[in-house]
């Protein structure tokens, strides 16, 4: 259990983190979302005890990060931004160093072996970290974070710089870990949140703007339950007119790169039967359909809506 209470951090006069309050329970995978400079990394640095908060409190399983720092840090596995590691060491030496600092004793050799296999570092296990590619370096950083099987795993942009296969692998790894652990992942890749997180927290300007499950967030999107239909050879103006006249349709968007692709945005939440209505329309007009589907909602749309609204308000104030 992690409790963060009214956490604040000021750099000079600038509030990087401005009163964040969160509770995270074991089993949760929390995605930290926000534009660059929103205070994600700063929050994580305070959570891991690297920098001291200007105000507020952080407690990990009953250990205060300031007064009980060592015991709190023992619970945490942390991948800092950019996955720093001692470049002159090989992954095996580096992991041995971390294991020794953590005083892992007899489990050490077994665990090092485990994480090397798990992150597929076998090929580079004895090459200096400086000579490794970005993807390998990142995986060495993750290996170091999960080495002692921590109760709390904090990963700052874990998939940054990885190729799609490696991204998939890391996500699988996070999903595999999650059962009885707390995982906190910061990212600005939205698909990652839908892929691995059970909870998404959007922050901007150091404040929490939204805290919900990814699907709840998607529901807030104007594209929630919108119907997109692609037609073969049609008359755009005429079709647009017909589609707009449909009850429950608030707006029809024409795809800019594909003129015969329409997205119908519902005007209220209840109109989940829009798909049926469009289907009926297709049959009546004898249109040839390439594709028709209902959207769950677009997370990037919600993200943009929340974060830009906030900055605009900030500018006025």
């Amino acid at each position, binding site marked *: 259990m992690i409790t963060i209470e009214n956490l604040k951090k000021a750099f000079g006069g600038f509030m990087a983190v401005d009163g964040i309050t969160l509770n995270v329970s074991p089993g949760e995978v929390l995605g930290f979302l926000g534009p660059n400079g929103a205070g994600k990394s700063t929050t994580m640095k305070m959570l*891991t005890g*690297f920098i001291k908060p200007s105000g507020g409190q952080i407690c990990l399983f009953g250990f205060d990060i300031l007064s009980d720092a*060592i*015991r709190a840090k023992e619970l945490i596995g*942390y991948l800092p931004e950019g996955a720093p*590691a*001692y470049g*002159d*060491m090989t992954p095996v030496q580096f992991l041995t160093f971390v294991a020794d*600092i953590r005083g892992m004793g007899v489990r050490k050799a077994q665990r090092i072996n485990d994480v090397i296999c798990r992150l597929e570092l076998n090929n580079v296990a004895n090459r200096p970290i400086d000579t490794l590619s970005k993807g390998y370096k990142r995986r060495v950083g993750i290996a170091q974070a999960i080495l002692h099987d921590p109760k709390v795993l904090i990963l700052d942009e874990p998939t940054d710089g990885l190729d799609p296969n490696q991204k998939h692998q890391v996500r699988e790894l996070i999903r595999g870990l999650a059962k009885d652990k707390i995982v906190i992942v910061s990212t600005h890749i939205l698909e990652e949140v839908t892929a691995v997180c059970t909870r998404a927290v959007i922050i901007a300007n150091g404040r929490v703007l939204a805290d919900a499950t990814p699907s709840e967030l998607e529901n807030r999107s104007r594209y929630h339950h919108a119907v997109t239909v692609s037609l073969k050879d049609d008359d755009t103006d005429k079709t647009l007119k017909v589609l707009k006249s449909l009850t429950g349709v608030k707006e029809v968007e024409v795809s800019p790169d594909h003129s015969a692709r329409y997205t119908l945005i519902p005007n209220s939440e209840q109109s989940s039967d829009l798909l049926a209505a469009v289907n009926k329309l297709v049959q009546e007009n004898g249109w040839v359909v390439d594709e028709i589907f209902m959207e769950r909602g677009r997370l990037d749309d919600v993200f943009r809506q929340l974060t830009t609204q906030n900055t605009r308000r900030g500018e006025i104030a």
Partner: protein
Amino acid sequence: MTQVMVIFRRELGSYFSTPLAYVFIVMFLILTGVFTFYLGGFYERRQADLTPFFMFHPWLYLFLIPAVSMRLWAEERKSGTLELLLTLPVPLKTAVLGKFLAAWVFTGVALVLTFPIWLTVNYLGEPDNGVILAGYIGSWLMAGGFLAIGSCLSAATSNQVIAFILTVVVCFVFVAAGFPLVLEAFQSWAPAVVVDAVAGLSFLTHFEAVSRGVLDFRDLLYFLIMCVGWLYATAIVIDMKKAD
């Protein structure tokens, strides 16, 4: 204690993983040779002791020790490993001590490798080996003082060159404080207490006593306080400057 050893071993290993360590040791050995035989007039003095050898150590350390200490923390800060190290369950003091000890033992190794000069003087005459041992101990303690200063200034920046220059400047102040030229400048106007205080701050004053073979408790205390004080300052500087 074991954590200190883990950090100590990693740090010492990293010295020898780059050519820097070997370059440093070779330079140190060449320069001690040059200073002892040419500037110190080792043969001309016709005395079986190592005074000309030890006499130049403060000046040699002034430029060589900052080269060892500059990377201690500046590199950690630059590469981001500072964040990694300080989020591991290890107290900051332990990390500061472990890294300092590695640098200190490293200079100790360089110092031990000057043993041919000890063999030479024993071959040529019958020196007082107790005095020579005291000289080595004094020299090593002085190296510790220089390194502790370097550790603190290395923690203040992520640029190793700046760390080097700052360390040379501060160390120079601590060496020059005991230099006759500086002391005479004070003598002309300041009371004797002030002159003594200035001289008492200097590496030179305390090192000279030890290298003559006089292991005075106060001289040892001076070096101990220098090390502990500057290492304590290192921890404070790191704590203050973590965020940037």
